């Protein structure tokens, strides 16, 4: 197919109409026009209206988001594939908390040495008890990543690593629910006589009833070879909804 361009340079009161000759069939690729407001009472929308030979409209090329104020002029291009950025939409800004913890102490709660949150009324870290607290009901995404590595070249036989997050509530009413419904303990691994590294990821979607707040979250790591363990973890928690889903399944 060969591209051609046709032009009507004259000034006409809208609409300017082009009727396809009988001998022609073409694909319309683009339209451009200059618009001049000569006293329109209100804002208006530049448009291309395409109709078949029977006079029925095939399409309106018009966008409510592309409006011209009364009295203003415009140079308007029409072509396929335009997608205007949404105007005035709310930016996603979910409250979250995150931390980095040391897991080297055998069988004790992870001690977070770095913590951050965007909402201290919602999330708080209790450094004495080594617990994260959530003070409001809702649905939360909780995720952790931990790395364990035995420090010695030859790991003692039957060395075990384990890692688990624990969730606890206070108050009456409904208990929290894990929507993903999988065990909290994410794993135990046994090594025998070789140096090893173990990467763990844990994710939970938690529904927290407002009557159960605050929720307490702690993470415990264990290594049977004690001081030989090198380990650390990062965690994050994001409130994805202010509503708690109490009976999701």
């Amino acid at each position, binding site marked *: 197919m060969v591209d051609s*361009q*046709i032009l*009507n340079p004259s000034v006409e009161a809208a609409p300017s109409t082009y009727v396809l000759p009988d001998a022609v*069939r*073409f694909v319309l690729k683009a339209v451009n026009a200059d618009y001049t407001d000569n006293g329109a009472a209100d804002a208006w929308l530049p448009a*291309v209206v395409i109709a078949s030979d029977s006079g029925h409209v095939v399409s309106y090329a018009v966008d409510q988001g592309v409006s011209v104020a009364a009295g203003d002029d415009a140079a*308007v291009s029409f072509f396929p594939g335009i997608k205007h950025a949404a105007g005035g939409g709310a930016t996603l800004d979910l409250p979250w908390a995150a931390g980095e913890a040391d897991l080297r102490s055998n069988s004790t709660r992870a001690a977070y040495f770095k913590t951050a949150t965007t909402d201290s009324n919602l999330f708080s870290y209790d450094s004495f008890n080594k617990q994260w607290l959530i003070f409001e009901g809702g649905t939360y995404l909780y995720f952790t990543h931990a790395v364990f590595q035995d420090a010695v070249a030859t790991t003692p036989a039957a060395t075990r690593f384990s890692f688990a997050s624990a969730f606890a509530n206070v108050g009456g009413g409904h208990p929290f629910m894990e929507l993903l419904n999988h065990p909290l303990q994410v794993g135990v691994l046994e090594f025998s006589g070789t140096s090893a590294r173990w990467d763990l990821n844990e994710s939970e979607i938690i529904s927290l009833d407002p009557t159960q707040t605050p929720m307490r979250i702690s993470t415990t790591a264990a290594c049977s070879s004690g001081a030989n363990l090198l380990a650390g973890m990062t965690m994050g928690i994001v409130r994805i909804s202010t509503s708690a889903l109490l009976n999701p399944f």
Partner: protein
Amino acid sequence: MAQPLTVSLPPNLELWGGCTIQVTALDPTTGDHVSDVDVSNVTLEVALVEGSADDLVVGPFMLVTGPEG
């Protein structure tokens, strides 16, 4: 210069003899054509499927010749 605006056009829309293309201004509420708005320098970029470029000339619409025209 007048404000530059863009509006989406249906892709791959093949038109035939007797079809019409109206460049117009519409009322945002009623969809009616708005009076007191003039249109000028209307250009249509088309990919011919049948017919010749000379056949495109209708009324005030003239063929724009390129460097090779």
